[in-house]
């Protein structure tokens, strides 16, 4: 049975500066959950509180049913990997990996064998006698991971372990982390600022901004059903229209849009740019706009339009992303069509 993590109304201030404003988070045992957010949002502080490296101003942390608040760092059933590999320079790779075993009161007898097995697991067999300086960044981080796993933690804490690596290696390593997580019985908290990384490997994502947990959900929800405009923006949704829900439609300043399903009340509508299509013909669910500019974004094309017929007369930009080139002229009047099922009313409007 895997140990879950419960974070209960955690508040943390440094001096008079509040960093965490009442975080509640429950992670089911055996899951890999990412804590995602831009730098300074408090995600690392939250992880350090879970580790016991930082003391919360108020609130509680539980592993399973066990309250952790009074338990010191070294006695918690955790292991942590930081952004830097932090291999102890005075020790060989093998000694580094064996560190947690040797730090015990009664070190086991088969240390060498276990170290070699662990190094094989992280694909560095035969590295035991090497020294930290002889390894590449990715190898160092794998050793750091092996050293953490050697402790057999119930909770694995990863504090941006991939940020210092280059792009290709990051992809390889994140998949590796997921593999490792699945082959051990543990719950993993993975702090990152990289949206793609979090989406790729997490069971659930906890998205934070300015010390507040904005949304805690499965990865796809952040794209399809963002709960706040901040979430929508962070996950790349370019169109957020204000208005109000009236029956099965959302009334905007440029007309009513059909909602595909019954949605709760809210004053903002998130429409992803890739869910919109530009065409010269009117369709069942479309609205009028003028093309203002377009540009390539990677292999796709991003078309900026100006919504027509606005009730208040002010310009409103609508962005459409398409995977094929369409030869629209600037200032041409077009019809932007949408899929009612893909429209999402944001319930919070902070």
């Amino acid at each position, binding site marked *: 049975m895997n140990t879950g993590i419960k974070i209960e109304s955690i508040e943390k201030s440094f001096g008079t500066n509040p960093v965490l404003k009442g975080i509640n988070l429950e992670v089911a045992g055996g899951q890999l959950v990412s804590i995602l957010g831009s730098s300074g949002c408090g995600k690392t502080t939250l992880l350090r509180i879970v*580790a016991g*490296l930082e003391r919360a101003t108020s609130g509680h942390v539980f592993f399973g049913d066990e309250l952790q608040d009074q338990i010191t*760092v*070294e*006695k918690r059933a*955790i*292991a*942590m990997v*930081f952004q*830097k590999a*932090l291999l*102890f*320079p*005075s020790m060989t790779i093998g000694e580094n990996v064996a*560190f*947690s075993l*040797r*730090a*015990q009161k009664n070190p086991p007898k088969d240390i060498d064998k276990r170290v070699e097995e662990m190094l094989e697991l992280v694909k560095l067999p035969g590295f035991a006698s090497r020294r930290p300086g002889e390894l590449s960044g990715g190898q160092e981080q794998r050793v750091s991971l092996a*050293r*953490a796993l050697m*402790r057999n933690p119930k909770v694995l*804490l990863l504090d941006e372990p991939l940020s210092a690596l280059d792009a290709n290696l990051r992809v390889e390593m994140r998949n590796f982390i997921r593999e490792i997580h699945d082959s051990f019985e543990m719950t993993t908290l993975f702090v990152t600022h990289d949206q793609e990384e979090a989406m790729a490997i997490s069971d659930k994502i906890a998205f934070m901004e300015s010390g507040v947990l904005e949304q805690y959900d499965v990865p796809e929800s952040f794209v399809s059903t963002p709960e706040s405009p901040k979430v929508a923006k962070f996950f790349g949704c370019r169109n957020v229209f204000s208005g109000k829900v009236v029956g099965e439609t959302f009334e905007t300043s440029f007309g009513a849009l059909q909602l595909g399903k019954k949605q709760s009340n809210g004053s903002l509508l998130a429409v992803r740019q890739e869910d919109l299509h530009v065409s010269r013909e009117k369709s069942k669910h479309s609205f009028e706009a003028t093309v203002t500019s377009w540009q390539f974004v990677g292999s796709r094309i991003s078309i900026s339009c100006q919504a027509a017929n606005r009730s208040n007369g002010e310009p409103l930009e609508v962005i459409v992303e398409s995977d094929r080139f369409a030869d629209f002229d600037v200032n041409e009047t077009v019809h932007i069509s949408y899929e009612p099922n893909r429209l999402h009313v944001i319930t919070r409007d902070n």
Partner: protein
Amino acid sequence: MKIIFRPFFLGLFVFWIFFPFLSIIIWSVAAGWRFPDILPEEYSARGYEVSFDPDGDIVRGVITSTVIALIVGVLATAIGSAAGRAIAMYTFKMKKFFQFLVLAPLIVPGLAVTMGIQILFIKYGLADSMRGVILAHLIPTVPYVVMIMSGTFANFDRAYEEQGQVLGASRLTVMRKITLPIVLPGLAVSFLFAFVISWSEYILTLLVGGAAVKTLPMVLFAYLRGSDLTLVGAASIVFMIPPLILLRFTSKHLVGRSSSVTGLGSV
């Protein structure tokens, strides 16, 4: 021009540095050396015979000085490391003031305060004792250790200690197995400095130890006044040896890869 002058000035420099040593070495084996002779007429081992006499003042002075310098080295390194770490890694109230206080003995002339120290030590029964001398020697040594160790700890990444903790190591284990090996070069250099300063300390030993604690500088000073230059020469050579031996074992930390100690260059 450059080619001619460079060897000349280099020679002058070497002469400048080594001439005093040269004359001491010659004096230590001379039976008599009169002006204007370039070298002594007769040689003798008398200086060294007296110096190495097991019951002589010099051997006893060496033992006393070694014991004191070793203890001072250890104590100063321990105290100064703690202070150096605090200055480099923590923020606390009145930090600037404490920083000044710790380094003050380097700025304030020692003689100015020794009177006060002497009176205080007599009052608490520390005068004329080895304990008192050791305590007094901490005054000029601790500031150097603080300087060296605050530099060492400024380059030390505290994350290493946290990494140890999150792997289940107690504070003591973290200190022994992680921090200590990393700051070892700084500790070695600190110990060297403290040892050498204590080894050559004269004024504080004289005022606090009185006639009771006879370290080697005390003995040497007595000989200097006696004007037996053969003996002074030999004793001076003996005086130089222990710090050189210590330097032999710590010099690797003064140069090369250990960036913990900056500004000392190649020694």
